[in-house]
């Protein structure tokens, strides 16, 4: 008994020192730290804006297309709504869409990938075929098709569609990792002891695949934010009453806005680009730390 606890203790201290080393390694990567800081600052600013309850929805007819300054920090949009408030609240929704879809599609991709990789055979074949059908379309086209089929524009539908179409890359990656890991000795030992299959898959093998999943989830947040922006820009995303960085930019479809009201597209555009840039830096830093092959 005493021996097991000491092994556990030593495992714990080993893993905590690994964690400390990883943190130190991450802190040495200046771009990654900068990325993290930008992510945190923008997120907190948006959340505070949301909590304080800035007025993003009331159009003020007398204040249409105001340039920045004069009580409107970023100016106002084509129907007189305060752009700063819209960028803050829009940020909340954009970040929510990015994070939710990235996490959910990773979860689904990981579960299906684990099943396909571990069981192989028929399960694998069916799942691979399904993912191939999904991948016969560029993702954006697939999303547009589903938007056509669902035939309603709303935040819930959009989240569902993104998750539904976004799991394939994680699925492929996890499947391939499982295919090679399932022949490792420790898995064979667990099987010989008669451990439950679900335990072997999710408690024994999955932790070894977590690093690439975490990294790809991070970069997928950026991907989904960009995807939502593109979809909203062409007019198939979330309705205008729920602001996102993408549908604020939708105003820039009109040439007169692009020409005369630069602030309407420059500020949300800057917000998206900066946030995505920060996520990419952060993701790269995370990859350097977590990728075992580089160590």
């Amino acid at each position, binding site marked *: 008994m005493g021996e097991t606890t000491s092994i556990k203790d030593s495992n714990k201290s080993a893993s905590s020192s690994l964690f400390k080393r990883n943190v130190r390694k991450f802190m040495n990567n200046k771009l990654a730290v900068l990325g993290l800081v930008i992510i945190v600052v923008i997120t907190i600013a948006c959340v505070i804006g949301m909590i304080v309850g800035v007025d993003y929805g009331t159009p003020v007819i007398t204040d249409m297309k105001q340039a920045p300054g004069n009580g409107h920090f970023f100016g106002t949009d084509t129907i007189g709504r305060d752009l700063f408030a819209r960028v803050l609240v829009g940020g909340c929704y954009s970040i929510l869409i990015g994070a939710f879809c990235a996490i959910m599609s990773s979860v689904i991709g990981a579960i299906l990938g684990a099943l396909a990789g571990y069981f192989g055979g028929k399960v694998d074949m069916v799942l691979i075929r399904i993912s191939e*059908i999904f991948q016969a379309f*560029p993702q954006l086209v697939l999303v547009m*098709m589903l938007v056509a*089929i669902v035939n309603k524009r709303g935040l819930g539908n959009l989240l569902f569609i993104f998750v539904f179409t976004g799991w394939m890359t994680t699925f492929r990656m996890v499947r391939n990792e499982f295919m090679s890991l399932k022949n490792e000795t420790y898995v064979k030992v667990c099987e010989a002891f008669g451990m439950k299959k679900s335990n072997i898959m999710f408690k024994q093998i999955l932790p070894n695949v977590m690093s690439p999943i975490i990294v790809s989830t991070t970069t997928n947040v950026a991907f989904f934010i960009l995807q939502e922006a*593109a979809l909203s*820009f062409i007019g198939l995303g979330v309705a205008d009453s729920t602001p996102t960085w993408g549908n604020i930019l939708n105003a820039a479809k009109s040439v007169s806005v692009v*020409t005369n009201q630069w602030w309407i597209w420059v500020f949300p*555009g800057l917000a998206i680009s900066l946030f995505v840039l920060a996520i990419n830096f952060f993701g790269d830093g995370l990859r350097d730390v977590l990728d075992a092959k580089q160590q």
Partner: protein
Amino acid sequence: MLKFIIKKLLMMIPMLLIISFIVYYGLQLTGIDPINFMVSPEMLSSNKENVEALRESLGLNDPLIVQYFRWLGNILHGDLGYSFDGSSIASVIAVRLPYTFELAGYSLLFSTIIGIGIGIISAVRQNGIIDYVGRVLAVLGQAVPQFLVGIILIQVFSIKLGWFPASNRVSPDATSAFADAFFHLFLPVLTLTIGMVAVLMRYARNTMLDVLNSDYIKTARSKGIPEWKVYLKHGFRNAMKPVLVILVFRIPALIGGSVVIETVFSYPGIGLTMTNAIVSGDYPVVLVTTLIIAATMLICSFMVDVFNALLDPRVRLGE
């Protein structure tokens, strides 16, 4: 090799059938009734028998599966049907598909040349000025949304400078077809190229660096082969294969990107056709455009497989 090609070709047919059925079925689920687009609302309510007779004669009361195979049969005979506004889909597609191929083709060509070029120069002159500029561009190119790049280009080149038109593909008073094409294609192609170069450049640089650090490059150098020859003959050729593979993976992103870019530049291609059809609920058009895109994608991945098999005998033998 022939067996491999035939096998891959035959695999495409069930895929297309499944995809077309899913899309057909999905669009049926929306419950949009084509009759509403053909008959005026007063007629619909006052003249119920005639509407019902029309419905019967068009076969809209048949089971879904019968309707699907009838539609499929028509497609195979080259009859793509009619959009809800009454125009022949085939004639719309015949004009617009080549426009999209132009846009995507030129972007693929230029982004490949530029991306691989900069990538290789950055690998050879590591930490040089081109490497540095390239890295900044790659980072920015991946962070700024593609349509925003398009908007910025419109702002600079067509509004401020007035060099290029901001929209459309053909101008009514064009004197030379070539100049017309060049001016209208320049900005959309540039936008798509910038997005693609960002990824390709980074990848070409890393692959080339891997190759340059390998043993056979050291051997080649130690034999006294001139440096440029080492890069071109030993480095470049070996770095190319993975780069070409990633190029093909970019095609879906290219097609998806061109859908958005066509909207930015009001460029009358397949993507804009599809977007407008989705917005207005014109389902026959949505159906045909998605199928065209899916078929294009399948053909591309087929070509990759064949290309890979030609380059690498292991792929063929593995099958």
